[in-house]
């Protein structure tokens, strides 16, 4: 098989859609186009039935008791907003304190910041160099005003897996609602809302080979029953939790994507991990001064993630040199703010190294041939860029770069 360019290794950002998902969706655009809220005719019934089936497929994947615990949204950003703002508002009389971590997605962090402006108090926990939050830190942060803990299943940049089961047990013990942004971990690592004591979980279709524009929020309905204040008002869809006409084709695809994962994720994760390890081994065998960012053991890192820093080579410069390969970088130059990744900074990665980080995200459609090509290309280009790097030359000459007084600019 010949390689097709560009090569996609940015599966944390989004995933291509599985053709099986597309096939399941197609009839719902042109044939079964009814509004799932139309109760008076066949078009509506067919759409409603399809939505109900998708709810079951999703509920099964995450171990939810009932399909009604799945609320459809436009994506995980909306799910995170609804979970956090919805709980904060509904339980305002109980308390005003929220606990989260410094490495959450912006959809969680910025929602929390908004709530701070409205009088809530938020604790943003550190994670340490491993990129994993400590359960003891969560416990220590709890007060009698704590109403919600929000900790992600896995981090989108460094792929580190958080101890949800332990945090879930702690939250149960203290009667605190537990939300997780499960977007990155679903279908790559164990996730079960019942076993992990999760009360609310945000998920999205486009990270699991489904379509963009559709997500869900799992909301526990028993032991405890979690209540939310709706953030979007209108026709009272989704039991009043989220108004708006349902995206039926998207939901059908979301369901199908979950059904596929339910059958295949364990095998798939094994295969992807072998490819990821192959990539890492090849890079580290040929290049000196590469550093893994975050924990590397299987229990604490997603099988598809490789986030590493190639010292003395700026990340965006490297991405440009490998422009036939789609990856991402924690380098400042890739963001409009010119600040390096806040996640890497939270891990205590020095700014110098944060600028040299590259995130590889492998996926269902990554091939061994692609991995070998990318490994060779990255090795060649890192070597070439190091020849071009004054820092590499100085380091080789024994200059301690930390002794130099650099002019910040």
């Amino acid at each position: 098989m010949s390689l097709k360019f560009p090569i996609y290794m940015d599966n944390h950002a989004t995933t291509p859609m599985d053709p099986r998902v597309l096939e399941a969706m197609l009839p719902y655009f042109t044939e079964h186009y009814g509004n799932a809220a139309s109760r008076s005719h066949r078009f509506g019934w067919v759409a409603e039935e399809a939505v109900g089936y998708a709810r079951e497929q999703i509920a099964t994947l995450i171990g939810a008791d009932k399909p009604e615990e799945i609320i459809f949204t436009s994506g995980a950003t909306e799910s995170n907003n609804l979970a956090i703002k919805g709980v904060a508002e509904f339980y305002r009389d109980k308390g005003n304190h929220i606990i989260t971590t410094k490495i959450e997605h912006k959809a969680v962090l910025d929602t929390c910041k908004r709530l701070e402006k409205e009088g809530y108090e938020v604790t943003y926990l550190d994670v340490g160099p491993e990129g994993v939050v400590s359960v003891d830190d969560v416990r220590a942060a709890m007060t009698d005003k704590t109403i919600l803990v929000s900790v992600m299943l896995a981090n989108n940049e460094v792929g580190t897996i958080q101890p949800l089961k332990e945090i879930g047990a702690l939250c149960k013990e203290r009667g605190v609602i537990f939300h997780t942004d499960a977007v990155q971990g679903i279908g790559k690592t164990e996730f079960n809302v019942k076993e992990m004591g999760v009360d609310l979980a945000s998920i999205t279709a486009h990270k699991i080979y489904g379509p963009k524009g559709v997500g869900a929020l799992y909301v526990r309905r028993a032991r405890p029953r979690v209540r939310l204040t709706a953030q979007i008002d209108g026709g009272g869809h989704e039991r009043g939790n989220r108004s708006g006409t349902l995206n039926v084709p998207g939901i059908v695809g979301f369901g199908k994507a979950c059904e596929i994962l339910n059958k295949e994720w364990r095998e798939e994760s094994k295969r992807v991990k072998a490819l990821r390890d192959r990539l890492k081994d090849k890079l580290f065998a040929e290049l000196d001064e590469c550093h893994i960012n975050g924990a590397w053991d299987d229990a604490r890192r997603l099988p598809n993630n490789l986030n590493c820093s190639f010292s003395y080579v700026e990340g965006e410069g490297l991405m440009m040199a490998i422009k036939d390969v789609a990856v991402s970088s924690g380098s400042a130059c890739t963001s409009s703010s010119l600040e390096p990744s806040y996640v890497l900074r939270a891990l205590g990665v020095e700014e110098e190294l944060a600028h040299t980080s590259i995130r590889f995200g492998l996926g269902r459609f990554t091939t061994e041939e692609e991995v070998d090509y990318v490994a060779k290309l990255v090795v060649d280009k890192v070597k070439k860029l190091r020849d071009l790097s004054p820092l590499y030359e100085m380091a080789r000459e024994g200059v301690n770069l930390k002794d130099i007084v650099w002019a910040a600019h």
Partner: protein
Amino acid sequence: MAYSEKVIEHAENPRNVGTLDKEDPNVGTGLVGAPACGDVMRLQIKVSDAGVIEDAKFKTFGCGSAIASSSLATEWLKGRTLDEASEIRNTDIVKELNLPPVKIHCSVLAEDAIKSAIEDFRKKQSAKRGA
């Protein structure tokens, strides 16, 4: 962000990469930027006794635009007198490479590197005369 063709061309085929002997009294070295900010440029010029830049070399740690800006600067420096060299403005580099606003700091850094190399050379010369 999409890069301009000129940036890509320079980044893929950087001109005048290398190192001149920084102890040579005819060589001026400028080292600007900071690793923590994500870009460091080292630009060196070798000046003839007639005051003309006969060689220029650079090494840059940075994004494609930073590499391209310094590569272009070395091209422009060769054959110029020091006074002509100090007339190079970052805006000239922005124009030549079609740098977008978020990359203007790369051109500023290149201008700083030129100035800093000239200053280093002049310092060395006056030290030599003083000795």
